[in-house]
Structure formats: structure tokens, C-alpha cells
């Protein structure tokens, strides 16, 4: 495996030299603009640039770029190691998160039925109680609650129309597939939050299209449709790291990291890290 980088950033060059022996399933092309050189189509494309969420989604929409690593973060090497570990995974990338998390990191996870009639308020009361016990400040609590609400809504909205039909006489082992999970972990002045479902049906291009479109909206001209990307826009803005993992027809994980010590303003304007992994 080869890592190609033709930019001029000495910090990244140094890290890449140290990683020359690592193994990854494909060649990796790291670029500083979204223009991928011709002949490099087959491989993993990573953009090395500082971007807010709108710039990020615009850059990866309609392109082969599926990873973005920001330049201006302190722990570039750690970000890069995480990227490589993600590429080496053969299954859904939960294991990668676990390697990032300190042992015993406070964690709360809740399963929820994938149904329009879900009691979201009761679900989120559990999340709120967990955060308040950990003395998380009120503005972050609001952001996490809003993010979890939108993530759960997305799981329900994005569920394949046919899922009930697929499990007409479900046994208990099949029944579990119509439950989603939302998970919140506190570690190193950050909150990791993600939603998991067992459909594995998310369409990344659709999601990117909607999020970019939602950024451009300054009014809802009609009866705005649910699923217009507004929810994704609202949650990704607050995240420093954004993850979308897809195990086709098996699992989807969407989530990210909310920094605890930046305040909302700096978190929103921070450069975003993004990984989309499909296995």
C-alpha cells in the first residue's frame, strides 16, 4: 500500500514517513484540494484541509473524497492513525471507537423502536439525566439532546419503507433488527454520540445533497418536507468529528464528536474531520 501526498505540509510529510510501513487495503491519495488527479480514481481519497461543515459537505458531494483530515488540529498524528485504523477494519467501525476511548469512559446507551410512535421525549430524558449527573454545562446538554433527537429521527425517517414487510412474522432474533441504538460516551473533554441501526441502507450521496441544500435555505417556501437535511445540518455544525459508517444491508452508524471545552461558537467554526467508511 502506498500513501500519495504531493502537498508541501512538512508536518504531514513527517508523519507519513513514519507510517510508511503500515498496511491498508488500497492506495491512499491525500490532496489539499478536492480536485483528484487523473489516474487516481481507484483508491481512497482524503482531503487534507480546514473546512467548516458547509465547505466540507460541498467538497465531498459529487466527488470521490470520503475522508477529510483538518490541518490545524493539535493531534494530527492521532487523527491520521485513527484514519488508518478505520481503513483496516473489515466490520463496522465500533472497534475503532473503542480504541480511542479510555478504559471506563462514562457511557450511556439506549435502544429505541424504529417507529413513528416512539416516545422521543422519554428516550431523551434518560440522556439528559446522564449528562446532568456528569456536570455537563447546559448549552452542551442542549446540543447533545438536539443531536440525539435528530439522529433518532433520521434513523426512523431513513428506515426502508419495506422493513416491516421484510419481517412479517419476525422471530425474536429478527425483531431486534427494528430497534436502533443511540450511544453517548464522555472522554477527554469530548462527547461521542452516534446512532446505530441494522438496515445498512443509508445513501451517502442523498444525505450530502440534502445537507448542502439545507445550508442554502433561508426560508421554507412550502410545507417543508421532513427529511430535508435540516436536522443533519443542525447536528453536524456542532461536531468537530463526523462519522458515517455503512455495512451494506447490515448496519449504519452516524455520529460524531462534540468538544466540551470550546463553547458552541468555536465548536461550530472548528475545522471538521470526516470519515465515511463502507464495508
Amino acid at each position, binding site marked *: 500500500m502506498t500513501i500519495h501526498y504531493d502537498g508541501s505540509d512538512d508536518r504531514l510529510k513527517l508523519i507519513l514517513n513514519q507510517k510508511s510501513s503500515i498496511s491498508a487495503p488500497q492506495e491512499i491519495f491525500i490532496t489539499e484540494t478536492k480536485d483528484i488527479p487523473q489516474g487516481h480514481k481507484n483508491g481512497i481519497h482524503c482531503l487534507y484541509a480546514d473546512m467548516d461543515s458547509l465547505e466540507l459537505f460541498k467538497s465531498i458531494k459529487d466527488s470521490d473524497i470520503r475522508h477529510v483530515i483538518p490541518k490545524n488540529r493539535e493531534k494530527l498524528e492521532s487523527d491520521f492513525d485513527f484514519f488508518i485504523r478505520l481503513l483496516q477494519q473489515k466490520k463496522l467501525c465500533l472497534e475503532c471507537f473503542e480504541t480511542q476511548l479510555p478504559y471506563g469512559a462514562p457511557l450511556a446507551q439506549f435502544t429505541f423502536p424504529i417507529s413513528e410512535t416512539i416516545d422521543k421525549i422519554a428516550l431523551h430524558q434518560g440522556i439528559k439525566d446522564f449528562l446532568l449527573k456528569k456536570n455537563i454545562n447546559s448549552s452542551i446538554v442542549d446540543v447533545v439532546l*438536539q443531536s440525539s433527537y435528530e439522529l433518532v429521527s433520521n434513523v426512523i425517517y431513513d428506515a426502508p419503507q419495506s422493513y416491516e414487510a421484510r419481517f412479517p412474522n419476525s422471530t425474536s432474533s429478527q425483531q431486534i433488527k427494528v430497534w436502533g441504538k443511540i450511544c453517548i460516551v464522555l472522554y477527554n473533554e469530548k462527547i461521542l454520540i452516534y446512532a446505530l441501526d441494522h438496515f445498512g441502507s443509508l445513501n451517502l450521496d442523498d444525505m450530502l445533497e440534502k445537507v448542502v441544500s439545507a445550508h442554502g435555505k433561508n426560508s421554507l417556501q412550502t410545507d417543508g418536507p421532513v427529511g430535508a437535511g435540516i436536522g443533519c445540518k443542525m447536528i453536524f455544525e456542532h461536531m468537530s468529528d463526523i462519522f458515517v459508517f455503512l455495512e451494506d444491508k447490515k448496519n449504519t452508524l452516524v455520529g460524531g464528536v462534540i468538544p466540551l471545552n470550546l463553547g458552541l461558537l468555536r465548536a461550530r467554526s472548528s475545522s471538521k474531520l470526516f470519515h465515511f467508511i463502507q464495508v
Partner: protein
Amino acid sequence: MQLASQHGNTTKIEIGPGYLSLGFLTSLDQKLFKSCDKVEMVFSENSMLTSEGIVDWSKWIHSLPILRADQEKKIPMIHLFQCPVSVTRQFDLLINNAPENFVVESFFVPFFNEESNEAKSMLLVRDTHFTDDSLQIPQCLDSAGNAMELDVVPKVYFSFLRKLKKFP
């Protein structure tokens, strides 16, 4: 919990804490809006706007006579009180359809102190802290008495004050 009531020519809607599922607005008796001059909408500081709430709001706005030029109806003004941060942040989506029909009477502004990691929000009130073309943000202190900083981009967050020329 939401309450709607009519007092003379004013319809008052009180919106309780929690997620702002605004679907109830479209289910309210539309007479409440058609027979009044003024709508007062009072939020709770702890109410939180979701994307579904934005869609519900949009449906409600489009159901009102304010956007329907074909109707012979005087236009009710909608006064917004105690708008929480999550609502104020989305003013561009919520009130841009008919900005002349909305009056923001009071709204919360978030502050943050990086050293103490404390966050707080402060209520700004029309004619005390702001008008359509002026804004005076009082100093906000954390629990140790240290000054806190605005936790928003002023030009974006206060953009609903359309005549404001100088941002903090």
C-alpha cells in the same frame, strides 16, 4: 405543554419546556388567529427547536392568512417572547417568510467562559437591550465573577435585527 388563549384582540400561545414539536399550532382553531390583531407567542428558555419543529412552524405559517394575499384579512402581528437560543439561531428559517409580521420582543443570548468552562444564557428585552436598529449587550459574568464571552457569531445571530448596522 402548550396553552393557547384569547384575550380581547390578542391570542396568546405559551410553549412549555422540552422539544418544540410545533405540530399543535396547525391543529389550533384557526379562529384564534383569524379574529385577532396580535399573536403573542411565549417560549420557555428550556424549549428546544428540532428540525421537525421547523417544518411544523413552516406549515403553520403557510396556513395563516399573513402569507395569503388573496384573503381580505388584516394581518395579525406575531410577537415572540423569550425565544430560546435554539429558536433564535433559526430565525432565518422561521421568520424570513414574513419578517414584517414578526416582532421579536425578547430572546436569549448564549455566553461562554473557556477557563471556567461555564455556559450561561441571558435574556435581552426589546427597548431595554435592543431595538430594530440598536443593540446593547450587558456584561455577563460567570459564577466566579469573570466576564463571559458571546458564544455566537454576532453578525449571524443578530441578523434578524435588520436595521442594525454595527454588530458587537
